[in-house]
């Protein structure tokens, strides 16, 4: 494959950032959900 | 409130009072004339040091004038609201029931007057220091351009200045918010000024479409500011 470096850089950063963002959001959500009362969580 | 008859003061009257108040403060304190204008002149000299080439300087003179104006705009706007928020004057004006649109127009007009004086000085500096040439038909274009560009800058500056007034960290936030918004003014005013200076072989007539852009910009943000200033300064 030509330009393998560029192509893999694009795929790695894009999906890496998405995975990182998802992980951070999940962790933050879990931490907060254990501290906040259910009445403040309209989705439960 | 019930049996007191409060006659609201008209928006334009509020604007006139606020504008004359701001200008009087600046005339008496002399901060703008003794600090901001010299700063802008200094920036023009620094540009000459950095570019170090007479041909380049006269070619890009228009852009440098407007860049120096933008830098000074940040300082002018911050000062305009620092004077007010230091002793809670903005809050007092709001509590007194003054029309926020009037406050907005008044403060913008005051900034506009200070900016026009600044731009005259900077254009003079460009003629003297950067050796640009100005013909009589260029002057007409230049004056129109200065008026439209200044109106746009003052409206945007007042709008974002009001938002960041009395907020911690406003010194750093204001340029971040304001500079991207005034980018069209920098592009338009620079092109129009270059045409007026006929730098880079531009014809004076090339500048007029840009003045149109500047006028539209000023109108859009005048309306935007009149509609939203109240909710921005509301606590």
């Amino acid at each position, binding site marked *: 494959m030509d330009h393998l470096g560029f192509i893999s850089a694009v*795929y790695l950063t*894009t999906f890496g950032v998405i995975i990182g963002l998802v992980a951070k959001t999940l962790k933050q959500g879990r931490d*907060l959900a254990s501290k906040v009362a259910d009445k403040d969580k309209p989705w439960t | 409130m019930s049996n007191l008859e409060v006659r609201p003061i008209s928006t334009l009257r509020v604007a006139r009072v606020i504008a004359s108040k701001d200008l009087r403060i600046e005339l008496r304190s002399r901060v703008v004339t003794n600090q901001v204008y010299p700063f802008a002149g200094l920036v023009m000299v620094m540009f000459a040091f950095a570019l170090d080439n007479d041909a380049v300087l006269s070619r890009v003179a228009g852009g440098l004038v407007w860049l120096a104006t933008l830098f000074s705009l940040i300082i002018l706007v911050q000062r305009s609201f620092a004077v007010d928020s230091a002793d809670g004057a903005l809050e007092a004006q709001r509590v007194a029931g003054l029309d926020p649109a009037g406050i907005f127009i008044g403060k913008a007009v005051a900034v506009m007057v200070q900016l026009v004086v600044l731009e005259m000085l900077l254009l003079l500096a460009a003629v003297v220091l950067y050796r640009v040439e100005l013909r009589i038909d260029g002057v007409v274009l230049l004056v129109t351009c200065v008026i439209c560009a200044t109106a746009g800058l003052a409206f945007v500056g007042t709008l974002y200045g009001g938002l960041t007034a009395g907020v911690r960290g406003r010194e750093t936030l204001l340029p971040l918010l304001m500079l*991207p918004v005034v*980018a069209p003014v920098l*592009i338009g005013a620079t092109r129009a000024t270059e045409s007026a200076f006929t730098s880079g072989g531009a014809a004076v007539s090339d500048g007029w479409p840009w003045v149109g852009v500047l006028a*539209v910009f000023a109108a859009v943000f005048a309306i935007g500011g009149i509609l939203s200033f109240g909710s921005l300064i509301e606590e």
Partner: protein
Amino acid sequence: MTSVSSTTTQTFTAKVATPTTRLVGAMAIVSLAWVVMGGLFITPKDVDQGDAVRIMYVHVPTAWVAYLAFIVTAIASACWLLSRKHAMGFDRVAGASAEVGVIFMAMTLLSGSLWGRITWGSYWAWDPRLTTTSFLLVTYIGYLAVRGLGGSLEQRARRSAVIALLAVLEIPLVHFSVLMWRSLHQEASVLSGDGDIKMDGSMLTTLLVGVIGFTCTFVWLVMHRQRVLAMQDAMQSSQLDAALRERADESTTINTNKSNELI
């Protein structure tokens, strides 16, 4: 600030996900896996661009999500301003969407400049679309800074909603003035020159799946992030209440001490 919630007995469910977000998340995972497989291995090379076209399957959906995010922010902000009750949900959706949008916009610019380096030979061109995109990024970084200014929730919502709507005024003006500026130089055709990609069925499908997958990712992220923001807001107000109560207790004890001394 030590024990805020332990004073009263409350039920905690350490759960942020709901069946809806799970479904959206599963759809995102499946379609993103398809994009990686299809984009990197299954689809053919482009006639003009060769393998460089594989960047498109990531770049175009990222850009789409970035723009979508800012449209959602603008609409949610308008809804907050116009809604009679000023429901904070609108404000949180606007904030969550802008946070996600800023990150996707940065990724768009990054993948775009790498793609540009291969196809045009330069990382950056003063193209109106590129310039406007970078202005959009800076504007929304400012928007997020305004959200972080502090003050009451209502204050945050009002300020940021106005900023978001002012951005709707700003961006077309920036785009138009850059367009007019670049048209003077007669070199505005960087993007249209060799940008024509003749797409066959598998390429088109992969791109479409990419758009769906990235959109699902965006929806999932915004829903979760919006819930995190809701919990943060709830925490902030409950902490405020607790601090006020503490202060009130303090003043009463001080007063009783004083009166004891007097006696």
